[in-house]
Every structure is written in C-alpha cells, then in structure tokens.
C-alpha cells in the first residue's frame, strides 16, 4: 500500500466533496425550504464559472473576479426566482421539473450566444499556479488547497448562518413548517428570494472554483447536478449537515473508487478484465451507495427535524 498516494487521493476526494457540498447545499436549501425542484441549479453553477472566467480576462485578476462574480450570480439567482420560480412554488414537482429543464436549455443557449461555444480557460495568479509540499516528497497543487480552504470556510459560514442567526432560525423554521412561519407574520416571499439567491451564489462559487481546473464550458452544470441530487438524497433533503457529510462521502468514494478499484479487482480477476470492469463499476459506485441508503434509510442519513 502506497500511503503517500492514499493521502493525496484522500485530499483529492475531500476537494471534490467540498465542491459538491457548495452545489448541494444550495440545492438542499431550495428543495428543503422552498419545496422547489430546481434542475437549473447546475446552470447557475455554469453561469458563475462563465461570469468569473470572463471577468478574470477583463480584470486580469482571478480573486477580484470571484469577489465581483459572486454578487452578480446572486442577482441572476434573484432574477430567476422573481421571473420564474415564484410562480411555480405551489405547483407540483413535475411542473417544476419541466419548467426548470426548459430553463437549462435557455440558459445553456444564452451562454452559447454570449461567450460562444469554445468555453473559457481561466488564468490563475502566480502563487496559485504552483504546488505546495505538504510533507517530504508529497506535493499538492496549491489551487486545490485553496478549494479545500474555501469549501471549509464556506461550510463554517453556513453552519454559523443556519444555527446562530435570525435568518438561519427562519430558514430552519421554514424547512420544518412553512405555513406556520408565514402565519407568524414573517415575509415569506423575501425569505424565499434570499434563500434562492444564496443557493445561486453557492452554486456559482463552486463553478468559479472549478473553472481554473477544467474550464468554463457549456453544459458543465448538467453532470454535477445529478451528483448533487445524489448527495442530498443520501444526506437527507433540507439538511445542511446531511449535505456536508453526504458530499464528503460521495467525493471520497468516487475518487478512491477511481484510483484503487482496479488494484482491488486485480486481486481476484485477470488484469484485463479488471481494467475494463473497474471504470464501469467506479462510475456506478455512488449510485449503488444511494440505492443502499434509500433501501435502509429512505429519509436520508441526517433528515431535518419532522415537519
């Protein structure tokens, strides 16, 4: 067993998990509190990436671009809430799925019209382009450490926001019993709009962080959104803690599966068969976990308190 490799792959898994958490936390807020299935959450992630990539090229600085792109993505979220989501809260989930699927097509095409089909590569400042030696001989790209740090800070901020602020109290109350919150005289419409914008900013932040690694490209949100749904189903819909633990779990399982499954399979099958079956099984792994959770604990691992 190569412990250096195991350590690096664990870091990679945590990094993927924290990115997933950023997307899933927004999704779980919107789904849990607004009871709104937003398939287009991935498109907000894509727009975050595109806006940030474009601003980076304009301003020449990635950090300023992120700081400016965050409120812009929040505004986009507000616009989507105001113009579309608001009319769908009372409709059933199928209507919401259809409408937000349409929104995906519209937003993908809009990005295509604005920035072209090519996608944008994001240049990083010098101090983020290199590697950091964690201990002797083990080096990690410094940008991946930044993703981990940003993810942890955001998670801590959300934990504080949800547990120790008045807004957080309302959010938790809304997740438990929406009707009662509005009956107590809380302006539920503003609360919902704020939650939606917060979700958009979180998804956008994830897109901004991934863009320098892959790049901002059309349809980039459509594959992460499926994994994000898996995360919130495992964690329990509406639960921030569930989203955090579920995301780390999925990130680690996916990364470690991709890296060690073929070695594991080689122990009991010929290496040719192991090489072809391992990628297939590791791609399925997270769905197998989801199916197991649904079978044993259909409400998810950490469901919010009963309604």
């Amino acid at each position, binding site marked *: 067993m*190569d412990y250096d*490799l195991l350590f690096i*792959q664990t870091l990679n898994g945590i990094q993927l998990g924290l990115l997933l958490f950023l997307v899933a936390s927004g999704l779980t807020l919107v789904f849990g509190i607004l009871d709104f299935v937003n398939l287009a959450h991935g498109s907000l992630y894509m727009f975050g990436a595109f806006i940030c990539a474009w601003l980076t090229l304009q301003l020449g600085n990635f950090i300023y671009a992120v700081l400016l792109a965050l409120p812009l993505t929040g505004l986009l979220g507000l616009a989507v809430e105001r113009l579309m989501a608001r009319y769908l809260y009372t409709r059933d989930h199928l209507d919401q799925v259809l409408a937000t699927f349409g929104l995906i097509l519209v937003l993908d095409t809009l990005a*295509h019209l604005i920035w072209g089909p090519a996608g944008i590569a994001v240049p990083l400042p010098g101090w983020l382009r*290199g590697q950091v030696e964690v201990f002797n001989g083990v080096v990690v790209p410094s940008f991946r450490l930044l993703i981990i740090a940003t993810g942890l800070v955001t998670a801590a901020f959300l934990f504080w926001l949800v547990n120790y602020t008045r807004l957080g109290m309302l959010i938790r109350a809304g997740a438990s019993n929406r009707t009662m919150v509005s009956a107590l005289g809380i302006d539920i419409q503003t609360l919902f709009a704020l939650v939606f914008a917060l979700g958009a900013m979180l998804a956008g932040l994830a897109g901004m962080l*991934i863009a320098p*690694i892959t790049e901002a490209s*059309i349809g980039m949100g459509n594959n992460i959104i499926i994994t994000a749904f898996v995360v919130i189903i495992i964690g329990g819909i509406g639960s921030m803690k569930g989203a955090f633990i579920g995301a780390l779990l999925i990130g680690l399982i996916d990364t470690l599966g991709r*890296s060690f499954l073929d070695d594991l399979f080689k122990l009991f099958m010929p290496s040719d068969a192991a090489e072809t079956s391992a*990628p297939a099984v590791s791609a399925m792994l997270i769905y197998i976990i989801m199916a197991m959770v649904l079978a044993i604990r259909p409400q998810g691992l950490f469901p919010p308190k009963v309604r």
Partner: protein
Amino acid sequence: MKKILTAALAASMLTTPAWAKEVKIGFVTTLTTGAAVIGNDMKNAVELALEHMGGKMGDLDAVVIYGDDGFKPETGKQVTDKLVKQDNVDFVTGYIWSHVLLASRKSVLDAGKFLISANAGPSQVAGKLCNKNFFSTSWQNDSTTMAVGEVLNQKGVKSLYIMAPNYAAGKDMVAGVERTFKGKVLGKDLTKWGADAQLDFSAELAKAKASGAEALFVFYPGAAAGAFVKQYHQAGLKDILPLYSAFTVDALSLPKLQAANFESVLGSVFTQEWDPTLDNAANKKFVSSFKAKYGTYPSFYAAQSYDAMFLIKSAVEAVNGDLTNMDGMRDAMMAVKYDSVRGPYTYGVNHMPVENFYEREVVADADGVWTTRVVSTVYKDHVDPFAAECHME
C-alpha cells in the same frame, strides 16, 4: 412598367436554382455542446474550401448542408438519415467521433451514397466493415498512436502510463500505442466520456505520478484537452512525467492554453499526418488563407475537412458532373487526383489513406503565437494494421 420589370426580375431570380445543376454534400459534425469548437473549425474549413472553388465543382454548384450530431451517436444517425432521405445528398462527409460514424455508416452506405470520413477512423470500418463507397481523408485511429509508440521507442522510454476516454476511439488509440511501444505499461486509466465526460483528472494524475513511469501518454480530444493540460501543469508534472499525446494538443486548445499561460504544454510531443508547417503549395495556401480569414491556425480537423471537399470535387470533375456514374467517381477518388494539404498520398485496399506520420512538437511561432512544427517523419507511407482484415466485395 417598372413594377412589371421588378416582378419579372424577382420571378427569374426565384426560378434560377431550378435550372442550375448542383452537387449536394451533407456534412455531419458537432455544432452544439462543448465539442462545437471542433465542429465550427470544420465548418470554417468547408466554407473556405467552397470559396477557393468559387462555389463550383466542375460545372455544378456545390451545396453543403450541415447536420449537428450533438456529440451523440443516436442524434448523429438521425441527422444522417435526414440528409440521405429528405435532402437526398450525393455525398455525406464530416464525422468527428468514431462512435457517431459507426452508428451512422449504414444509413449512408445502404442508400448507395459515398461516405467520406473527415476525421473518425474506427478500426471496424478499416477492417471487417470496410465498404467500396467509404473513403477517409484522415487516418485509422490506431495509426497515429502507433507512431507515438515508435517515437517513445526512439527516445529510449522504458515505462509508460496511459490515460484515455472510455469509448470506441479511446480504446483504438490505446491499442495502437500498446502495439508498437516496446517498454512496459505501468498503468492505464479509461475515464468516463460523452456529454457528461469526466474532466477532473486529479485521481488519475496522482496515480500516474505514483506509478513511477518515465512518460505519460494521453488521448483527450476537444474540450477535455484544455482541462487535461491545465491539471497536468498545475500538478507540476512537466519534468517528472513528460507528456506524449495524440489528438489532444491542437490549434483549438493552444490559443486558450496560451491565453491562460499554461506553458507546460510547450515542447510536448505528439504525432499526426498533417502539420501547418508542411511544405507544399496546397497547404501554404490553405494555412495562410485560413489564418487571414479566421485569425487562428487551422486545426487538423479543418485540414481534413478541407481535403474532403477537394476529394469530392476531384470525383465530380472526373465524371464531368454525371453524379450517376458511381464507378467513375470511385475510381477517381481511389486515384487521389487532388492536391492534399498533407502532400501526396494513396489509398489502401480499405480506402484508408496510406500516408506519412510526423512527430510534432509545440513551439511559439515568429509572432509568439503557440503552434506546432514537424520534428521528424516517423512513418513513411504507413498502412494501417486492419487493412488485411478488409475483404472488399
């Protein structure tokens, strides 16, 4: 009076197309999703070819109808069916992706039309599924990576790590390099591909580094190329694990990599049948007018699409525009009666080009723009390994 004249003029303009005889060409490529970058470059090359022909093939007007495969085999087949049945085209060409070509080939060939691949070269169509009406202006998938294997041998590389996407061409490419590489393959990763392809390679790169291999071979076409090179750069692998690639570093990914300053790609080695610096008249005209019109270097996809248009033109002219003379057009294409941008080549028994393969490397040109140049000729007149399996009726 004036009104009548205008009406008459308008009427005559409307009826003109009905008198003119035309040759219709269906061009299937990817015009949506992230892979649309490739499709647009091919489309640009086709438009340039039409411009250079003056819109004519012999006496006939050349009409190109584009179809978008959406990066999916099933959509590619549908759009091919539409071109063949509804538009009744005379030639179908294009095809970036091997899995799209494999799904679509039967629709064209069963209708008795010519199918000309401007890129995809799956082992099947070169071998058991070869057909008299199929031609290629590119290569058979394995050939390019067989050349990579030879380059690795020449450089004395003893061990290799391989990464490629998990689909028809990915498997062919890996098989090609394994066929000729004499050293040891220490590890191999086939990653998820398609519209939701895996683009974060952190786990695979960490494995490649830990394997202790002397070199890394990858095949990542299209948008995945940029993502891969960036992460290769960020992981600081340039001096530890030199990069050898096929169809990954190209004129589409280089401008973006340069804009983001990922200089790890400079000096990386790959192989191809064509390069913008190849010294022949057709190539010079193609590269300089492409750069003048679109402001970038053409990619190999563009070069092969440009060639496909001129191959069709040579066939149409050989039969004086008689598009019912299939045998005449086939013989003309078989004889390669046009000036290809890759220089002279011939066709093998399976209608795959018998051509040279060059070792190329990434350099900055006189203006500082990142491009490629030829280092050496790896194969002269290379015949692909599946030609022997082809038994043409």
